[in-house]
């Protein structure tokens, strides 16, 4: 396969996300500009200009009308997807680490970092109520004093948010009251990424403890574990196959000190049921920070510390391949 290389960022990629149909791909990086691309040919549709710091997270709503970004410039911004105009600016006291639309596109959540003497907060806004946006008053704001939230996604039906913490804990926060519904701790280190399956029944977590784990999103039952020998930065579940893709590598700060080991920056494919690795794809010059499957399962993208996003359309061999059990 010939990957399409997207060079829209000057610094390392922090998150990439497809919209629901998969025709658009959003990418954000540690530079202030968020990009949106046509996934079919890699053409850049536009950029969302306005942030003044690294952008940590991006999300797009169900009908691709609005885009939400959270940044280290202590703000979370809402954009019009089509024109790139800024619709709302929500200022916070510390960097915004994760953000997301619920399935209806009406309620947004974002979490802030524990930083500069401020606590980590998980905030919920209802976009149908303009007063909340104008006054910058969330209808629910949950303080997380123990360990900060490092990744979060909405659960099924918009009832709760599943959040991964710096200490490896996974919590379900109710979107109505903000109380903690369930807690599990299967990881021993920071959770770098959480992504849900296409039907929202399962989530996959990627952790610094060198594993990715599959959980039931409602009961938070631990289903499967995928082990590697390096920290996992991101993991995604294939919508059509029983496959999982994982991206990782040494931490960026350690790359220069462990230079003799090259070629450790592959995307790795695991069989979801057998927990066994069956394939690898090379390409990035640095650790992979995020991976995402196209909603049709026929391509996937990865964003790396090297600042590139690569769209890979699978070869027919990938679909024919069967793991020998």
């Amino acid at each position, binding site marked *: 396969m010939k990957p399409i*290389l997207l060079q829209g960022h000057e610094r390392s990629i922090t998150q990439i996300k497809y919209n629901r149909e998969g025709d658009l791909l959003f990418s954000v990086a540690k530079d202030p500009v968020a990009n949106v691309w046509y996934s079919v040919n890699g053409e*850049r549709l*536009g950029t969302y200009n306005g942030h003044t710091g690294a952008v940590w997270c991006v999300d797009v709503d169900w*009908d691709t009308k609005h885009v939400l970004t959270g940044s280290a410039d202590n703000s979370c911004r809402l954009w019009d997807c089509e*024109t790139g105009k800024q619709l709302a600016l929500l200022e916070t006291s510390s960097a915004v680490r994760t953000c997301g639309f619920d399935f209806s596109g009406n309620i947004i959540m974002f979490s802030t970092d524990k930083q500069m003497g401020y606590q980590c907060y998980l905030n919920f806004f209802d976009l149908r109520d303009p007063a909340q946006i104008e006054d910058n008053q969330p209808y629910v704001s949950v303080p997380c004093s123990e360990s900060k939230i490092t990744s979060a996604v909405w659960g099924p039906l918009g009832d709760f948010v599943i959040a991964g913490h710096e200490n490896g804990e996974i919590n379900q926060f109710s979107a109505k009251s903000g109380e903690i519904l369930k807690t599990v701790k299967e990881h021993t280190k920071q959770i770098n990424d959480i992504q849900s399956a296409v039907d929202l029944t399962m989530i996959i977590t990627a952790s610094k403890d060198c594993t990715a784990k599959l959980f039931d999103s409602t009961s938070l039952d631990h289903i499967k574990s995928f082990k590697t020998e390096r920290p996992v930065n991101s993991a995604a579940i294939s919508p059509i196959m029983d496959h999982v893709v994982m991206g990782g590598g040494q931490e960026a700060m350690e790359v220069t000190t462990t230079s003799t080991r090259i070629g450790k920056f592959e995307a790795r494919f695991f069989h979801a049921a057998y927990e066994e690795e069956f394939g690898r794809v090379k390409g990035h010059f640095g650790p992979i920070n995020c991976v995402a499957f196209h909603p049709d399962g026929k391509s996937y993208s990865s964003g790396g510390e090297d600042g590139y996003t690569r769209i890979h359309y699978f070869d027919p061999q990938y679909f024919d391949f069967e793991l020998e059990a």
Partner: protein
Amino acid sequence: MPSIEFDDSKPSWADQVEEEGDEGALPSPKETIKGNIKTVTEYKIDEDGKKFKIVRTFKIETRKASKAVARRKNWKKFGNSEFDAPGPNVATTTVSDDVFMTFVSNKEDLNAQDQDEDPMNKLKGQKIVSCRICKGDHWTTRCPYKDTLGPMQKELAEQLGLSTGEKEKAAAEPEPAQQAPSKTGKYVPPSLRDGGTRRGESMQPNRRADDNATIRVTNLSEDTRETDLQELFRPFGSISRIYLAKDKNTGQSKGFAFISFHRREDAARAIAGVSGFGYDHLILNVEWAK
């Protein structure tokens, strides 16, 4: 669609004459569309005055998309891409080199690979040194029995009328015999190595069994797909591989295919069963692959 658009209208003959007058005798660019293949031929003169003919081949794909997606295709570009022309901008979008998914067949392969990276792992659990006194896994000077066993051996040797030097040699002698089976250490000629008697086995192609059970199918129709062949040949036995020759550009079959069965008997039955079989208005020809 934001894909490369082209102008169907032909330039008027007057423009053409003008252009030709400007650039000397350069033929005008040509565009031909044949099926789903578009060929663009351009001519160019570089600084040295050399003429170039540039032929580019495109594959035109029509994709069906939902209404919402199709509408989004017509969105205007904005932000930093506001002034980009339709189609991918080479400043932000490039096609990189071919990469392939490397398939890992089993876990052992992986572990072996990981161990290779650390040469010290290999040495673990292997005897590197051998004590002359007690044959233990340490240097002679560090031997715990140095003070007790050492003098005793010396005495013994003297009693037998041998010099200590010879004694040492005698003690050392059995070593090669011991070492020989271990993988590292002294050079062992290939003929004496483990399995040296199994001659030339490794040189024979692995796929031999496979090749033996491979058949060639010719006179296939252009529309044949791998799945069709699978359906056709599966009843004869389990298939290990299907290769259908296809045109690189059009993806159409070239009319022949190779099918490898796991067992030769199955292949033989397939030949007997399908040869001369009418398939898609053509009569198939099936024989052993050479």
